């Protein structure tokens, strides 16, 4: 049997893992969250959550993945079957395959917008559209608003191109595909983000701007602390949620990438490096671009409205409106949208890899066949959020797969690794090949605090939004059909994954071990 594929370089692993974590949220979600939850004071619960829960949970995923890889298991069903000798274990792992795919069904569409807008900025100066209202109408038209089928031809074409790029990268495999993409894409992302940060820091207010429309005030909008907000549980929950999303824990992607490491490769310093790189992009670069620029051009009140209208409006309406008002704005617009595209593509290949690894490792498919099957499936399923976009199908998938599903899967991972497999064994597994030792106090944090915090986050989200989403409270009748289609799609993906796991178990020489074996 041929050796399982491996990462070619340590820096490649770090860049690929950082690419997995760095996404749209680093540039659009974080600054909005910080500004809305106490400014600089938000960083106190943010850092607490990062240290107590984000990075430790990421280390657990790294350890589970590396351990699974040693037994030729790169996806959650195989890894869970190793950790827990129970017939249920591999079926719990089904979530680690279909959740990232569920997220990908809509993520690819948003990723394709940034590719399309890069082209529009580079070749046609965004068609000369300059005002906020015109850019909002432009985005709506691009998304297919007003069309009978719900998608514009140009958006559909760019969706296909985005699928093609992802497919092409993944056919190269781990070292020749994903790692090479990360080794080119991540440094480019840093350069683009750095140039944009410098440009924002040197922005001049537009003519007739008020006294509060300066970069300094823009930074103040993000960083001025409101220490009183630290007494609010909502702020702590928001910080924990942001850390959870930004590190991409609970996707199964870290676990899958780590399975391509060697048994004695260090994961403590390597994992921390990837996490810190993500934090650098989020806290230093991400917080210094969109919101400060918006304050300079639209003032504090205008920025509050933009932030409330969501990340898409900030990224695809407000930012191009700003670039259109500055000299060589088309170039900076291109840089901004291409930056988002790189952040997107390095994440989307990571989200697809668990399914590819599952088909290869557990069903014995060739790499090319597995990649083709996954991307054909995404091509078909991706049409649900696209065609149902105006009916909220994207929001529906995002809530169940991208919010509740992730928290649930992260909780399952933590319980299986730290309680079923055992905290002491998990601690020893994390330290295999370690270059540094972690303080032992972290073991107790991992065992007690991390699962508790995950359970609290999950319960809070279900309490706040779960029942309303489940019953579609306030959803117009004409939107319900597409939202139900989105739910059926997710349930269908889960059912197919479970069926494939059963098939993997029953095939001769099954790689997924039965509990009794």
């Amino acid at each position, binding site marked *: 049997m041929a050796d399982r594929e491996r990462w070619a370089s340590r820096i490649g692993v770090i860049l690929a893992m950082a690419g997995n974590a760095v996404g749209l949220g680093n540039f659009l979600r974080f600054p909005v969250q910080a500004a809305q939850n106490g400014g600089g004071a938000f960083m106190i619960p943010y850092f607490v959550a990062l240290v107590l829960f984000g990075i430790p949970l990421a280390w657990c995923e790294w350890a589970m993945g590396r351990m699974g890889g040693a037994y030729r298991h790169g996806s959650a069903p195989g890894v869970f079957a190793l950790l827990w000798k129970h017939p249920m274990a591999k079926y719990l792992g089904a979530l680690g395959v279909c959740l990232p795919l569920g997220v990908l069904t809509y993520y690819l569409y948003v990723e394709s917008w940034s590719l399309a807008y890069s082209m529009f900025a580079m070749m046609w100066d965004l068609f000369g559209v300059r005002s906020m209202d015109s850019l909002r109408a432009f985005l709506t038209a691009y998304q297919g608003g007003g069309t009978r089928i719900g998608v514009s031809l140009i958006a559909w074409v760019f969706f296909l191109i985005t699928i093609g790029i992802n497919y092409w990268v993944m056919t190269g495999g781990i070292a020749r595909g994903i790692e090479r993409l990360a080794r080119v894409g991540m440094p480019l992302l840093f350069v683009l983000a750095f140039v944009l940060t410098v440009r924002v820091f040197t922005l001049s207010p537009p003519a007739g701007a008020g006294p509060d429309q300066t970069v300094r005030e823009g930074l103040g909008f993000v960083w001025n602390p409101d220490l009183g907000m630290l007494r609010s549980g909502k702020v702590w929950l928001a910080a924990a949620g942001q850390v959870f999303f930004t590190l991409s824990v609970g996707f199964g992607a870290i676990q899958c990438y780590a399975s391509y490491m060697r048994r004695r490769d260090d994961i403590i310093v390597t994992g921390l490096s990837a996490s810190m790189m993500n934090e650098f992009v989020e806290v*230093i670069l991400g917080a210094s671009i969109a919101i400060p620029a918006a304050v300079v051009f639209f003032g504090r009140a205008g920025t509050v409205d933009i932030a409330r209208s969501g990340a898409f409006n900030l990224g695809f309406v407000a930012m191009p409106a700003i670039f259109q008002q500055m000299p060589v704005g088309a170039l900076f617009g291109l840089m901004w949208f291409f930056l988002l595209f790189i952040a997107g593509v390095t994440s989307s290949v990571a989200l697809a890899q668990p399914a590819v690894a599952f088909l290869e490792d557990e069903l014995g498919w060739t790499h090319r066949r597995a990649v083709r099957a996954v991307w054909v499936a995404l091509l078909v399923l991706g049409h649900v959020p696209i065609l149902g976009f105006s009916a909220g199908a994207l929001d529906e998938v995002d809530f169940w797969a991208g919010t509740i599903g992730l928290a649930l899967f992260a909780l399952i991972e933590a319980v299986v690794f730290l309680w079923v497999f055992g905290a002491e064994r998990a601690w020893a597994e994390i330290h295999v090949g370690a270059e540094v030792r972690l303080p032992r106090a972290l073991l107790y944090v991992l065992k007690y605090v991390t699962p508790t915090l995950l359970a609290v986050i999950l319960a809070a989200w279900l309490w706040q939004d779960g029942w309303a989403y489940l019953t579609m409270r306030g959803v117009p009748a004409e939107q319900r059909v597409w939202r139900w289609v989105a739910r059926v799609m997710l349930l269908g993906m889960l059912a197919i994954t479970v069926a494939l796991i059963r098939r993997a178990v029953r095939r001769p020489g099954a790689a997924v071990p039965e509990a009794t074996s």
Partner: protein
Amino acid sequence: MTTTGWVFMIASWAAILFGTSWCFYRVLTSRRHWQNPEEDIRHLEHGEFEPPRDTPHRRR
């Protein structure tokens, strides 16, 4: 931007920069493996990867 705003921003940036620098110092000065990744992948085909050469970590 208030003074405390500057303090929070600079402290956060300093913490992140220190953490990132420390990590990359450790990674780039580690001699454990993969000092020449381009050479490592040049001759390799998918599914037929040889494990990179093991070299003891110099801190050991």
